[in-house]
């Protein structure tokens, strides 16, 4: 199986970007190579330049980017190659798939047309031959009902199916090398396992090499033969997967390997008072029918019951579309809901904006997207103290500034930064700001909606430590919503598993994670913690 012929060779490549603040070196002299038929992973945290190397080699850099060095495909230099000659390799011999399958597909064309058009233009196939080939490709990537899917539009497909279509398109010309840039990051863990299994199967069948760019070490361990670890635009360590995972030599690699969230939260005593009690909460979205179309209802959350005790952290896990975020918002009355929600003995369901205001101070929320949840035109100080403007209007500007200073120190940021704007901060820092905004009001309950999902593992670890610290310091109760099981296991003492708006399983975190009762939970746990085993079982099943 293993051949030693090098098909893709990168020598001393450098990528620089011209920005208003001067030149920024994204990649500073990287060497790597890919042999025929092997799987190579490039691992690094965001901003390590791992994607930009491939963009440079494929001539896809942004307009202000510049590449130096050499990238050769079977001896053919790619950098500086004129576009028409580059296109004979790019998209034919070397193909790419990206993270976001929705934006990579044109929403206006059917799947069949998007697959067959390049075959007709570049491959010179007739329309019917191209269509037959498209069908064959869809079968190859195991899309159910491929005949029907040819006529579907991208929005009719799920995220996993769209990624399968992207893979089918990438395979159309039998490439030598498939470059996969975080292809599973936007997908749920179970879908991720399926896609990875598919890639492994296709590799065996077609004998291509795969260059896999990812930040997720679990995938690397389960999937790759060799690994390059990148940091700050340089390769800090390289070796076989086994070497890297068993005997890492560099601190950075060790840090990445140890960045899995750890620690457990002890359960609170039964005697702790119940702060927030939700009884059979349902949320229904109604789409009003038009003149010719009947309206329809979508039950996003169906009769979910939850009670949160003082000092407790309840974790809600589930895949996308399970209604976990919707439930979190309904708890805080940010969405209209049915059922009872009681906060410290007072029913708060159905309260209007003004009636709800006094309770808002105690019930805070931190959102997933650290880029979207901070208003871009306000300074950090203004963002943090906005809640005080509402709940403590008697404070002077000076007192508010002082509160902002203290809150920033509390979350581990330099208080001098309070006059800056959110876009000047990294993702982790922004999430700290969002936490400071919630903490400044001294709430009793914080609903955390995927607060660590957009962050690198090492940053995640810091945020988890921060959340633990403020929970102890202020005696807070958390509702922690996440699809990331490892984080929930580390933070929550009680876990609820949701699927399609309903609770599938619930119990003490250890109980749910060690001895899952439902098949759904078991699948979820395996895909998250035992990826390697899942992949090898898939391979066996197909063999």
């Amino acid at each position: 199986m293993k051949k030693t012929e090098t098909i893709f060779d990168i020598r001393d490549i450098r990528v620089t970007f011209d920005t208003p603040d001067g030149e920024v070196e994204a990649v500073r002299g990287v060497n790597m190579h890919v042999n025929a038929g092997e799987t190579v992973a490039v691992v690094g945290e965001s901003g390590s330049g791992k994607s930009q190397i491939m963009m440079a080699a494929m001539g896809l850099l942004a307009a202000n980017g510049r590449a130096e060095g050499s990238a050769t495909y079977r001896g053919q230099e790619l950098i500086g190659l004129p576009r028409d000659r580059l296109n004979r390799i790019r998209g034919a011999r070397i193909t790419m798939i990206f993270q976001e399958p929705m934006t990579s597909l044109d929403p206006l064309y059917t799947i069949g047309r998007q697959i067959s058009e390049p075959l007709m233009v570049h491959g010179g196939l007739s329309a019917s031959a191209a269509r037959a080939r498209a069908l064959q490709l869809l079968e190859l990537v195991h899309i159910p009902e491929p005949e029907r899917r040819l006529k579907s539009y991208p929005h009719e497909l799920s995220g996993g199916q769209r990624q399968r279509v992207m893979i089918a398109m990438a395979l159309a010309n039998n490439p030598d090398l498939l470059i996969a840039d975080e292809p599973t990051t936007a997908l749920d863990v179970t879908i991720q396992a399926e896609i990875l299994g598919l890639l492994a199967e296709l590799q065996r069948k077609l004998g291509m090499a795969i260059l896999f760019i990812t930040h997720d070490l679990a995938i690397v361990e389960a999937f790759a033969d060799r690994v390059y670890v990148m940091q700050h635009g340089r390769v800090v360590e390289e070796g076989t997967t086994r070497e890297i995972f068993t005997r890492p030599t560099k601190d950075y690699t060790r840090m990445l390997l140890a960045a899995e969230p750890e620690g457990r939260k002890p359960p609170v005593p039964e005697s702790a008072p119940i702060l927030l009690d939700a009884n059979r909460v349902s949320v229904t979205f109604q789409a009003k029918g038009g003149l010719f179309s009947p309206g329809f209802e979508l039950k996003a959350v169906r009769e979910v019951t939850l009670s949160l005790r003082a000092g407790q952290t309840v974790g809600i896990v589930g895949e996308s579309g399970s209604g976990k975020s919707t439930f979190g918002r309904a708890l805080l009355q940010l969405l209209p809901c049915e059922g009872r929600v009681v906060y410290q003995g007072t029913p708060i369901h159905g309260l209007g904006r003004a009636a709800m205001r006094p309770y808002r101070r105690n019930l805070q929320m931190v959102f997933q997207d650290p880029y979207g949840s901070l208003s871009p035109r306000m300074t950090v100080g203004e963002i943090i103290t906005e809640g005080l403007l509402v709940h403590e209007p008697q404070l002077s500007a000076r007192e508010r500034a002082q509160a902002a200073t203290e809150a920033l120190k509390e979350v581990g940021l330099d208080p001098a930064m309070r006059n800056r704007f959110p876009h000047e901060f990294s993702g982790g820092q922004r999430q700290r700001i969002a936490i400071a905004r919630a903490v400044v009001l001294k709430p009793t309950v914080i609903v955390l909606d995927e607060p660590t999902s957009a962050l690198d593992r090492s940053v995640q670890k810091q945020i988890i430590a921060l959340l633990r610290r403020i929970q102890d310091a202020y005696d807070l109760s958390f509702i922690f919503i996440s699809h990331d099981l490892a984080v929930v296991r580390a933070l929550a003492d009680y876990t609820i598993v949701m699927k399609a708006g309903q609770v599938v399983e619930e119990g003490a975190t250890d109980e749910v994670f060690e001895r899952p009762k439902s098949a759904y939970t078991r699948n979820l746990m395996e895909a998250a913690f035992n990826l390697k085993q899942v992949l090898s079982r898939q391979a066996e099943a197909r063999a």
Partner: protein
Amino acid sequence: MTDLATNVSQPPAAGAAGRSLWATALMRLRRNKAAMASLVILLVYIFAGIFGPMLAPHDYARVYPDFVKVPASLEPYPRMDAVLPAAESTARRARLEARNIELDGNTLRLEATSRREIDPRVTRYFDRSDLFSNTHIVERSADGRSVLLESQVERYRFIFGTDANGRDLFARILISIRISLMIGALATGVALVIGVAYGATAGFLGGRIDNMMMRVVDILYALPFTFFAILLVVFFGRNVVLMFIAVGAVEWLDMARIVRGQTISLRRREFVQAAEALGVSAGGILRRHIIPNTLGPVIIYMTLLIPKVILLESFLSFLGLGVQEPLTSLGVLISEGARNMRAAPYMLLYPSLALTLLLFALNFLGDGLRDALDPKDR
């Protein structure tokens, strides 16, 4: 407290103080040469509009009956060779016989005789003309039948010529720039205030209220603008204020639609939900979160709206529905120029050039601002 803040060590990479999105946009704008040139031109126009009429050598309403439709020239009027015949004819009108006329710099000396005794008030014949002033009798013969008159020749520069009524075109262009800019700024301001408030409210409240508010906009859209303007003029007479109302009442509709669209997309953003979770009132969310974030597109639309409004005003003035004499606007001047195109082409040329340059500058600046404020490459 501030001492404490400054004592904490600054991160090394962040030398500059917080740079807001506005500051980055300004930096991007500075690199756009066409936009910066337009900005300079615009500043010159604003200066000309505010101070020009005060500094101009002629009043925009002053009529020079002797200099009707004189072509644009850098040389002063009257021309030297025109002074002597003019003096002669004035003398004839005063029933004097000019015998010896000489011009010394700006001083005209004229020896005249008459068959009867000369009344000292003949000087008034001269002063009545625009050419001569301060006419006085220097010498008078004993019999009173011959005099030596001395008069100052008034010489005027009309660098852009004069119009059909003998008013200085340069001064009129300056005052029309003032009027056009004022209408542009005020009507745009009216459109901005109404449009932003209306659009943000409709978009934020959503549902039935939004539906109702936007249907009102649709109905107003259906109103034919020219007809509306004519109607207003017929009811209330010609008036600059009416122009603002007419133009502003129509132009806020686009603004409201733009702001509403922006608001709807902003409302779903997480920072708005975060504000709701903090308990911020609807007004606070609109004021602090929605409106500041719509300002980018609003400013772009505004810079493109000003030229549109100026053109609309010019159009109305061209039709004769605009400002009233002796005030004028670029549209009025162009309309007059068009009527006198054959005899006095400069009367069309200069106001048209002024308007074109202004519109170019505003449009280029608007384009530059759009590139600077929402760059796609971010």
